């Protein structure tokens, strides 16, 4: 989101506060903004969620169709993730084909879900080698105020957790448990580095002036499943180790928040 602009006044205020380990919105470095989760809000979707982190707001919709498997994975289903940075969400977003930013977010979210084996892809097979479920995760970003990676990731995880196979629509026999087979529960967290300070869940202003970005997806065991470094700044090895160490604790509390919301819904 290189095109977002922050005034010099704001930039300097952020840099000054950081020296005292404080942030513009008074959070500390390891603190997320308020996370709001509304599962199941779109009835035309097979699974959905509206998730906000602070003012950043994303709607995830899951649509499930049937189709052929890929030739090299004849017994596994298919999953695709798509992010639309629609111009509603920011004055710098433009309509048209997905920007590199949108593609990167979609691919990193997809990797976190896929590599953590959240969905058991083998269970998406309907007729071996011939017919499988195809899951579309569509992320509609409606308000952009920083940290789209995590907002999109949580929205995807919650929407998938609420998703049900549309047996009827495809004239398939209904199952006792129509839920999409969720077997793991990954969490993705994004950090930025400003000067020598590193903080989680960057706001728009922080993201705009940040030197470097790091996104980490971990599973229930805090094992790492996906990573993505971003921006043109650099990390030192021990900065990354420190992020990983901190991240375990931060993710634990977020996992509880999300799981609670999902369980109430299901």
């Amino acid at each position, binding site marked *: 989101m290189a095109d977002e602009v922050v005034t010099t006044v704001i930039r300097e205020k952020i840099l000054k506060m950081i020296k005292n380990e404080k942030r513009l919105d008074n959070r500390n470095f390891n603190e997320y903004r308020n996370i709001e989760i509304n599962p199941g809000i779109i009835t035309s979707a097979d699974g959905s969620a509206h998730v906000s982190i602070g003012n950043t707001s994303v709607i995830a919709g899951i649509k499930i169709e049937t189709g052929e498997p890929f030739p090299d994975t004849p017994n596994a289903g298919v999953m695709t993730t798509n992010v639309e940075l629609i111009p*509603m969400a920011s004055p710098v977003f433009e309509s048209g084909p997905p920007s590199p930013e949108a593609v990167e977010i979609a691919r990193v979210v997809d990797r976190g879900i896929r590599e953590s084996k959240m969905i058991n892809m083998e269970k998406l097979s309907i007729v071996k080698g011939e017919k499988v479920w195809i899951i579309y995760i569509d992320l509609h970003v409606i308000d952009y105020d920083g940290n789209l990676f995590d907002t999109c990731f949580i929205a995807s995880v919650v929407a998938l957790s609420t998703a049900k196979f549309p047996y009827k629509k495809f004239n398939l026999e209904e199952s006792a448990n129509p839920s999409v087979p969720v077997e793991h529960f990954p969490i993705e967290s994004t950090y930025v580095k400003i000067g020598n300070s590193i903080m989680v869940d960057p706001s728009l202003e922080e993201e705009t002036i940040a030197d470097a970005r790091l996104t980490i997806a971990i599973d229930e065991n805090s094992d790492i499943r996906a990573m993505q470094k971003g921006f043109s700044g650099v990390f030192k090895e021990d900065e990354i180790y420190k992020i990983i160490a901190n991240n375990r604790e931060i993710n634990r509390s977020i996992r509880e928040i999300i799981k609670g919301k999902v369980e109430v819904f299901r």
Partner: protein
Amino acid sequence: MEFLVMLMSSEGAVNIPKLINENGLRIDGRTTEQLRDIKIDVGVLKRATGSAYIEWGENKILAAVYGPREAKPRHIQNMYKAVIQCKYNMAPFSVDERKRPGIDRRSTEISKVIAEAIEGAVIVEQFPRASIDVYIEVLQANAGTRCAGLTAASVALADAGIPMKDLIAACAVGKIDGQIVLDLRKEEDNFGQADLPFAMVPKTEDIVLMQMDGHLNEDEFKKAIDLAKKGCKRVYELEVEALKEHYKADMDNTVTDKVINNGR
């Protein structure tokens, strides 16, 4: 509604179901002159200059306004007035069959007629060379999205402080089972005999949007317009209520009045 689904999914002959019962009520229990439930929230987005969210029956739609801002690319600038640019878009998950992202012919046409309707109400002369950009995102669709979207856009324009002659109110009218009814839902649209999306500036009764397809004789058409006007007036009340409700938070109703009377 189960019987409808059955009729639609049985291959071969599709019989038209009964859409108005012996008591004159429609499949969702409404009378012929009744709107679906409508709920409007104002100022729901941070980044947009103005915004609104509308639930209209099972439609869920967001509208955002950016501007007035510099019109780009430059060759679209008009040196006498602001240009209105509108993008109506359906989310991939808003309909039964996943919609592939991107603009299609239907959304191109709807964006055009909505932009023209808005230009009929906004005081565009106040902002030469500028662009006022209206984005309508349909999150869940159940017939009547262009009217619901235009209604939301009108409230978002007010929230953005854009001067207008007055709010625009929109609603569709149609014919089902031979009768003229207000505000078709999906099954009524699919199996009905006519659909007429309509929008006006209620205060002046200026018609800013009108499309029609189906079959209406001249008398039916007049009855339809009459009913559409009644519907728009009710929609207008809901718009004003929503704006008042939103600005009450500022403890000052005069703000609302200022916004919605801004243009005069």
